[in-house]
């Protein structure tokens, strides 16, 4: 299945084509979970925010949340604000 993935202010060593911060279609096995997506991209799961179809996904639910074809996933660092 294909899911649409966009990285914000992140670089994934395993998927350099995502470095432009635009959305890309990514081929994943059927019923893949969000945690498996992060693993596939080589992204450390801590300090990472996840939006699936515009809804925030708590870190505790990533291993049990299965993606469906056409889902839109946005990944971003949970950075802190400043001046």
């Amino acid at each position, binding site marked *: 299945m294909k899911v649409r993935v*966009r990285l*914000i*202010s992140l670089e994934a060593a395993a998927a350099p084509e995502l470095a432009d*911060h635009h959305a890309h279609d990514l081929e994943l096995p059927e019923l893949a979970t969000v945690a498996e997506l992060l693993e596939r991209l080589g992204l450390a799961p801590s*300090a990472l*925010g*996840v*939006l699936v179809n*515009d*809804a*925030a*996904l*708590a*870190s505790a639910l990533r291993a049990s949340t299965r993606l469906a074809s056409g889902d839109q996933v*946005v990944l*971003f*660092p*949970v*950075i*802190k*604000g*400043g*001046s």
Partner: protein
Amino acid sequence: MAWHGKVLRVDLTRENWREEPLNRIWAEQFLGQRGLATRYLAAEMDPRAHPLSADNRLLIATGPLTGTMASTGGRWSVVTKGALTGTVACSNSGGRFGAELRFAGWDLVIIEGRAPRPVYLLIRDADVRILPAADFIWGATVWDTEERLRVRHQEPLLRIAAIGRAGEVGVRYACVVNDRDRAAGRSGVGAVMGSKNLKAIAVRGSRGVSMPDMARFLTAAVAARDTLNAHPGRVRLGRYGTQAMMDVTQAYGALPTRNGRQVQFEGASRVNAAAMRARRPSDGSTNLVRNKACFACTIGCGRLAHVDPEHFSVRAEEGRRYRGVEGGLEYESAYATGPMVAVDDLDACHYANMLCNEHGMDPISFGATLAAAMELFELGTIGAADTGGVELRFGSAQALVWAARATGTGQGFGRELGLGARRLCAKYGRPELAMVVKGQEFPGYDPRAMQGMGLAYATSNRGACHLRADPYSDDFQRITPEGKADIVRRSQDEIAAMDSSGLCLFTTTAWGLEEFAAQIDAALGGGWTVERLRITGERIWNLERQFNRLAGFTAADDTLPPRVLNEPAASGAAKGRVAELAAMLPEYYRLRGWDQSGVPSSETLSRLGLEAGAIASP
């Protein structure tokens, strides 16, 4: 130990000064900078005094690590009763001024009274002078003030903290600017300085900061620096600056837009970090020139940037002086001059931010006040007759540039904008349109998407603030209010201690209290642990709370604007949600050891050593 043990007390009314010993007992209890200066403020002034009266104090405070080799050891603070809020105000800055003050041998400067005529303070080590500013720098911009002082005193390395025109004409959110583009930006500390007829403080020092055991201190500082250097958050801050945030708040739906009517901005990609790095057709250059670091900083989040030479702002006669490379947009200034007023013209945002730097006013409060004025204009509550013919509409880059100049120099409708959003909206009968807490305007995070930030805004002792708590990580992963009260309370205490150290909060991308404790402990000769920093932070927080209570603030002020409490977010991760403050505030009070009215219990005050006499009796 790292303290010199010296306080410079300046009486502007009598135009004299004297040296005093630093109160070591208070330094043991409140550490330095924010905490220690607040202790002095609370002891010396009636919290009910008007912030613009001669009875207010203005404290220039350093931490024990200011001026040391610790990474980011250049922070200093202005502590006073805020002109914008009427609360206790502590506004923190970087650059090189704070380190220079320590090099001159001073830990703290206490300024009292009001000069009978405009003056500036010149400090060269122990040589302190109060000199006339009229016909010299009074009326000048911050940038001109810096240049003229260096020329007159033939001292190219003078470090200067000054107010611009905004501080002179009483803009309620005027700030104190140092090193051209660093600022103690929030709560109107520059308006207080202006009310004292004090234009600038110029410092040159020839001493260092001594350590009880230099080898031990360097070991701690180098270990902490290496931890920071290895962290991807540090790399990100250096590369993108704080502007990395805009894509995150935009994606999440936490980016206040059009005075908070919306939480995502359709033009965000034109004013974000990528836009600053995009080549423009006119000169093939980018807005961003390079990054910039403050004293001893190994992060370098600051931006140096230049406006497109073809942009309307710099093609105009009055814009010619802004063609050079100057301090560029950071997230908060970009949010406030961009999405909040719906302007997607990067150069106009940058230009307005330069005007804020040069005239000395907080771009967050300026942008959020302009956004309120734009909403009033679009509702027909104010019209072109009020603004002198200017169409104050959302999205107008021309209106943004005009408003920044008019406000910074106190001209026409700029006087109204200089009141801040709360006073402006109240004046026109629509107080609910001010996106403020305790009179201070929102930074760039919407409390409907970030519930913890909503609680942090509501309970911040200086009004709406994004730097008084650290709910970011949890807020960006969890949209519901459960558990936020404890996160906000704990991080408020930690940050209060960090703000008292002389180090920058941005180190917390990699550091926890452990790294702070190790360096503070080495600098102060032992006794400083993580747990002691927590208690110190809690003591500072409760002292600030007590100051505000005596100034007249109650639990009724721990609230958010009706818009975010009642109007659901229209899009993003929080679509359909409002800020659920009522679900968090009672738990927050309970965890703090306060009663249901938000009053610290006698047990809490006693545990923290905040006896009744800690605050000056009226």
